């Protein structure tokens, strides 16, 4: 045990930290792109507040095309662009860019479906009170769907953890990379087990944390 900790403790800790950094940054930037994209998809939809078939089709296209590319292929495809944007295509830094690109459309769809859960009557009555479209988005759409957006965020975060592990196979950092490099290539079964347990714990922790937050935030229960 002491031996194991001496040999792999630091490696695993650093990997855990890397995974956390990647999760936070790629979820964060994923939402920075995904929310506007989801808003555009929602408001330009047929019968919505700023109906626009052309813009809606373009947004739908972007979302569907990127979503249909398997993540592992997207990483490889993006390598030159990743190098250009991040300065490197490997390690923690190199993974964040493809992660964001791949997560954003997925997040946009979830954001859009959160909006769609809202009663359209609420949007319409805001309009009847003289709310501008921007006010409807900012004061009605986002706050009213906030609990649902958080629920979606739990799913997005956990999905991203899966992507990060996958990225470990092609030079990314984090727990996935440790599992492959030590647990798999070097047949270190204990390393494999520990990364597995840590990943499960991380996912459970995120789910529980989000559940608690949503329960506190959601006033419509």
């Amino acid at each position, binding site marked *: 045990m002491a031996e194991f900790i001496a040999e792999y403790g630091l490696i695993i800790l650093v990997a855990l930290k890397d995974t956390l950094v990647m999760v936070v940054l790629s979820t964060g930037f994923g939402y920075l792109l995904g929310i506007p994209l989801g808003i555009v998809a929602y408001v330009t939809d047929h019968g919505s507040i700023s109906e626009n078939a052309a813009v809606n089709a373009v947004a739908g296209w972007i979302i569907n095309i990127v979503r249909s590319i398997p993540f592992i292929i997207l990483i490889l495809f993006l390598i030159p662009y990743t190098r250009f944007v991040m300065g490197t295509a490997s390690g923690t830094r190199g993974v964040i860019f493809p992660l964001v690109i791949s997560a954003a459309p997925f997040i946009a769809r979830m954001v859009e479906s959160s909006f769609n859960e809202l*009663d359209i*009557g*609420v949007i*319409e*009555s*805001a*309009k*009847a*009170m*003289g*709310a*501008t479209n921007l*006010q409807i988005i900012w*004061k*009605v759409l986002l*706050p*009213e769907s*906030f*609990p649902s957006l958080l629920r979606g965020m739990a799913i997005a975060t956990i999905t991203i953890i899966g992507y990060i592990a996958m990225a470990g196979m092609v030079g990314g950092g984090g727990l996935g990379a440790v599992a492959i490099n030590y647990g798999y290539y070097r047949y270190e079964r204990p390393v494999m087990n520990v990364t597995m347990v840590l990943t499960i714990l991380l996912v459970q922790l995120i789910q529980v944390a989000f559940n608690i937050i949503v329960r506190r935030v*959601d*006033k*419509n*229960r």
Partner: protein
Amino acid sequence: MIEIAHLTKEFDNPDKTKLGVLRDISLTVEDGDIYGIIGMSGAGKSTMLRLIGLLDTPTSGTITVEGKDLSTLAGKEKIDYYKTIGTVFQGYNLLMQKTVAQNVIFPLTLSRGYDKKAARERVAQLLELTGLIEKADVYPSQLSGGQKQRVAIARALATDPKLILCDEPTSALDSLTTQSILKLLEDINHRMGVTIIIITHEIAVVKKICNKVAVLEGGVLVDNGPIHQVLDSEMHPVTRSLFGREED
């Protein structure tokens, strides 16, 4: 005063034919009226209210409010028009993540640089009027249907409108609650001089608070005018059955 002249509304059917929902409707709503629009489901009542509320535009005909033709309003004028009317819906349409007080203040917060102190006082007044003072900090999910509709009415009054449009405000409520909501609307009309247009499929609502009634049937205005006048006239069969049914 609202003058509706030759109002017609058609929707596009999926097969490119037209669905005529309102046909050549003309009527006048005077200040201080409580105007009932009654008809069966699908008669075009909600569509008519949406046109008056500028949530949709007519295929032809005009709606003139306080001398302004609604079809000429654009941009800022349109927003200003919305602020002169309040709307109450059957489904309440409250903001579920906001408290009662936050819901009532909401229409005021839409105006840039609104007076926060005056707004808070206004909200307190309206909560008093609608009997919701104790519920100020409660969320709508904890209210009964009748209380939710009171919040919606308080909210509709926030901008001090001259006109309130109600689309089946009591249809989801039991009869006792209906009575109290109608009483509230009547009070608002008497005390504040607010004109009310109320849509309903229940004749009891019309009898209880309306001074005038318009009967819609398949998008056609079949009877219209002060209640007693309509009752004294040769009523359309639909009107007769609406008024008759209640007496059984």
